């Protein structure tokens, strides 16, 4: 029974997964967007880096929106409305991600501060 269910699932989603023909500019935009969107069944993998069935669906949805003339921001917003904000691989800059985005620069400034502080203490 379980295997029959799977076969049907495969069969129905197959139609949606056939790649759409696009111009080169559209293809380049699509490739860039594939890297920003997480594969819904993976952890930190982009749909562009995944052959999971849901990723194929998502990619074709993105393609369709590009061909329909929608902007990148519109497409990302549409995708996160459906799947939640954790579909974005580049977290939004907001209060709870402040530490995440500040991490490299805080580390560098602390390090530089420490070096200068030690120098001053020496002289």
């Amino acid at each position: 029974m379980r295997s029959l269910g799977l076969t049907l699932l495969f069969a129905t989603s197959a139609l949606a997964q056939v790649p759409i023909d696009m111009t080169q500019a559209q293809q380049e935009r699509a490739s860039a967007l594939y890297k920003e969107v997480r594969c819904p069944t993976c952890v930190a993998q982009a749909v562009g880096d995944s052959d999971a069935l849901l990723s194929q669906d998502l990619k074709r949805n993105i393609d369709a929106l590009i061909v329909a003339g929608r902007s990148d921001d519109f497409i990302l917003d549409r995708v996160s409305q459906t799947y939640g904000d954790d579909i974005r691989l580049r977290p939004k800059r907001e209060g709870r991600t402040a530490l995440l985005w500040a991490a490299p620069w805080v580390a560098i400034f602390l390090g530089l501060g420490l070096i200068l502080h030690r120098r001053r203490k020496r002289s």
Partner: protein
Amino acid sequence: MFGLVGHISLGLSCLATLALAIFAFRGAGLATLRRLTLLNLSGVAFASLTLITAFVVSDFSLSVVYQNSHSAKPLFYRIAGSWGNHEGSLLMWALMSAAYVHILAKLAPRLPERFSQIAFAMSGIALFGANLFVATLSSPFEQIAGSVPTDGQDLNPLLQDIGLIIHPPVLYLGYTALLIPWALACAAMLTRLPAKDWARAVKPWAYLSTSFLTAGIMLGSWWAYRELGWGGWWFWDPVENVSVIPWLLALALSHSAISIQRRNILTGWSLTLGVLAFGATLLGTFLVRSGSLVSVHAFAAAPGRGLAILAYLTVLIGGGLLLAALRPVCKASQDDALLSRDTAMRLQNVLLMAITITIIVGTLYPPILQALAQPPLAVGAPYYNISVIPVVILTLLLMAAATSLSWREGTLPHKRTAILAGIASVLTAVGFLIFNATPLATATAASAAFLLMMGARPRSAVQSSSSRRSRRATLTAHSGVAIFALAAAANAAFDFEVDRALSPGGSFTQGDYTLSLERLDRSDGPNYLGVTGTVFVNGLTLFPEYRIYPVREMPTTEAAIHMSLFRDLRVSLNAVDGRIGDQTQWAVRFHRKPGMLWIWIGSFVTALGLGMSAFTGFREL
């Protein structure tokens, strides 16, 4: 039978390492300690051979063989399958650590006696913990409950590749080499060893580790590039991230050791690094094995084992850090100018730590938010590219500056070299911008070109201050990094990708490329069903393959890659519905990947240079 033999040899190793710890603390002679390290090595090696034999003869009464092997699998992969799983890989960990500690025993006569005794005591403790874990909680020699199955469940097909045979052992050679700096750091702190002696002892091990880690990480990347049908070579996957952290820390450690030898600076920090680098390898193991991070590498999540690794980590690393905190702060009398190699060495620690911290924060942010019951968040490649690459660019520029500055008193770099390097860098930037590269890729390429040209002509003032051998090693490793960075920037900037549905006989043209799927042929193997396509790309013929492994009901794509000096053409074939049949829709993915060959060459040259440094360090021990 195999189970019993394995258990006995591991038991023997547990006893040998326990004895090593006790005897070393009590001040036993080197000859005794060396016999114990050899006894431990023999025990673990015999256990490893036993496990490999069990895999070769397909003894399915062992549950690890049953779960990860199949009698129809080629011999090569049956052997490699012995470490392609949780239990086997940790046995390999124990084997390599045992070998390194035995090498340390061979080198010990060149080190102060009390210092090496304590180092053996610490090694003994660490090895005892590892052996005990492998012998009990994580034993590969567990018998299967009930009757012996007639055949196995096969190895994850993604792992049935030449990449699997070499990637884990090389990576583990890098990880386990960091046990020695940890033991040396603890011993140095306990015996108040002069900083220069500690630096001399630790330097070759730090370099050895970075060399193997460079090679091991890139072998994994090479495997992913060929085996996972996506065309990428680096994904910022959590497990990739945790393998880079020990690499960064070991790199900072090796450079700090040089600074101690030359100028007696960064002494306290380098001891902390010695503890942290080993801590990072254990933390990585914990995160992967406990199931906190999910990926293709997490063979089986087992919470009990995770807790044991966490306890091990807390004792060894917590203990080491406690020693570092209690250590009396030495007042160094530094008299270096601001513009000097000394400052550059301090800065390289800052930059490498900034990269490390960013990767740790990015990797741990999602699980921590989850623990705080926040809405979920994903951190992936786009975040790391924006956050880490600017720091990498600063590091490349610092490398270019550092090697042309002298210790203590800085003089400005040779004008002509700097001007030539500046011109090369500007030309590279212009080239990248003409072809519409992103600012980040352009900046990376420009700074890599600068580094490459600065290294091409070393300064005479700097030449006199270090041995020719070590200068050659530095030049090799730094050039490797520059080549790698330049190639990676070109790769990111000029990647070209098309995804199309094709039936046999179909074709399409996009950009400069015309691609046609001539025909499809069945190409079944011993344990899989396969379809191989004949694909023409601009007059070249490529044969991508699609496989299904029935035992695990899992498909894999074997991409066809045409490699040339400046770009790879890569075609992969994918059955849209995951099955092979007459009605199958085929998705063909085509990539042009510039600079791939140079990414591998750059990494190899870097690993070679680091290996040369390790070799020099061992000679000077």
